[in-house]
Each structure stands twice: as C-alpha cells, then as structure tokens.
C-alpha cells in the first residue's frame, strides 16, 4: 500500500511515517500542499492522508486538486479542530467520508486504510 501523508507539522508527520513503515506500509510525507501535488504527479498513491488546517492550500482544497490528478485515490482527512461530527460537515462539502480527529490513533488510521483498500 502506498500512502502519502501531508501535515505542516514535520515532527508529527515524519514520526507517523516511520511508525507506518514498521507495519509494512510505505508512507511518503510532505509538509505542504504544493509539494504534495508534485509527488502525486510523479507517483501513484493508493491513499492520501491530509491535515485540514495547513498554511497555503488547505487540506480540503488539496484533496480536490489531488482528485483531479488521481481520480482513484482514497483520501482520509485529519483535523485537530472540534469533534468528528463538527468536522464532518466540512468534509461533506468535498464528498469525503473518511476523517480522523487528531491526535491520530495509528490503529484507527490503519483500520480506515484497510477499509478503503478492501472497499
């Protein structure tokens, strides 16, 4: 499974990537939307995990742009803001159903990833 992680907190995203690699998941990471778009143009990812609140391009906006490049990619949004139900209204605007509230539980993340890959 090839995963792209995008979060402006370098320390957080790099550690998550390393922990996913221990579990056999190849996860590239970047800290901004522009770099993420460059990566998805060059490599095919199965899943993108996007932080919602980032400087420059927001996660929701980035999700839409990634979808234009890779229509088949699965997207999981992550947010540190409010509750999951509070966030889901925002996610619904872009047609996404998968979201996680930060701090992320790695097992919940992998469970969501597996659900997406099986579905």
């Amino acid at each position, binding site marked *: 499974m090839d995963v792209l992680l995008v979060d402006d*907190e370098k320390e957080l995203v790099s550690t998550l990537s390393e922990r996913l690699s221990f579990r056999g998941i190849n996860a590239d990471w970047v800290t901004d939307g522009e770099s993420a778009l460059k990566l998805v143009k060059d490599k095919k990812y199965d899943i993108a995990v996007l932080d919602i609140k980032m400087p420059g391009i927001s996660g929701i906006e980035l999700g839409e742009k990634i979808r234009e490049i890779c229509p088949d990619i699965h997207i999981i949004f992550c947010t540190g803001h409010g509750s999951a139900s509070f966030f889901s209204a925002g996610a619904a605007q872009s047609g996404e159903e998968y979201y996680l509230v930060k*701090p992320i539980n*790695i097992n919940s993340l992998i469970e969501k990833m597996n659900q997406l890959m099986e579905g």
Partner: protein
Amino acid sequence: MHTNTELDIHCSGVLKFFGTLTASVTHELNNSIGIINENAGLLEDLGLMAKGGMEPDIDRWMEITQKITGQVKHTHNILKDLSKFAHTTDYTESLVNPDELLNLVASLLKKRLSEKNVTARVITPDESFDIHTCPFLFLYLTGASLIHAVDHADQNKKIVISTDQDEKKLCITFSGITNKSDMSFLNKKMEKILNMLGWEMKFPENQGKFLIFINKAN
C-alpha cells in the same frame, strides 16, 4: 438563516476575538500533544521490536525522549501564556508593561499567524516602561489589530509591532500591511471601547501601517 453580515455583528468584538485566540492556542496545543503521542508510540514500537530480538538503539531512544520532553516544555509555555491571558480579567485597571502584553498576544496568536504564512515581531524600546490601563482590553484591542494586520499583510508577510512614547502618550505601530487595508475591522463596539479608554486609532494613507495612541494617565 442569518446572513454573514448579521452573524458578523452578533459575533463581533470580544467574543470573536476570544474565539480566534482560543482556536489558535488549541491548535498549537493539539499539535504538541500529537507530536508527544507519535513519539510515545514510536518508543513503544521500538520497545516491542527490542522485545522481539532487535538490538535496542539507546541513542535513538534518548533522542525520542528528548523530543517528548521538549514538547512537554513547549506545551507548558503555551499554558503559562494562556494563564497570563486568563488573569488579565482579574483587574479592570493595573500597571502593565505594554511590550510584555504585545509579546503575549503575538505568542497566543502564533498559530493563526503561521496559518497565513505571516510572522510578527515585537520591537521593544531600549527602556522598558509601564502604563496604567485595563490589561484585558489592552490585549483585546491590540490582538484584534494584529489579526487585522495579519489578514492584510503585504507581500513580505512580516508584521512589525513597535512601541514609542512621549510624556503623555504611548504609540503602538503595526507595520507591514498592504495599503489597500482600511479600518473596517473597527466596529462600533470596538470604537466605544476605544472612546471609553481615551485611545485613538489612526490609519495614515498609503504608509502600510496603522497606529494606536494610548493616554498614559488614564
């Protein structure tokens, strides 16, 4: 259904500022907790791998624990700032250091600034001085001004806040803003507070800055 303008009026002023500041602080706290969470998880992963027979890399473990300790310290500093902010409501008037409060407001709004890719620097004068004023309203008015400055930062994305004084007045300058900016953020409620405190705001045309004048003998 309310229109945006109606909502703006209802949420204007202190509550809106309080919400923005709280969002900025909670975002930063949540990021710190997230980093602590990931590094604690990484330690656990490495521990399980060591249990499974992999030789433990003690230096790596030390590096990770230092990151956790650093984040705990950072989180504590954010909470100290938040506590300082909360206690500004203890007194309606007290002797305050303007530069200290300006640094506090810039620190509390740090995440909001970084979301807009803007930095803010407080330039403190050689000689520190105190003024008698309402600490909470000082933070509110300067904080609302900083949010406005950030939203209207020029292409350099660097807001500079400086203080100057004469015998009667303290002047706080917010520079690094676009000339297209105006005083529209000054709603009626804010104007009332300014008048009540005897403060004045000025927006010199095409200078990329605005100024707040505060009477020292309030």
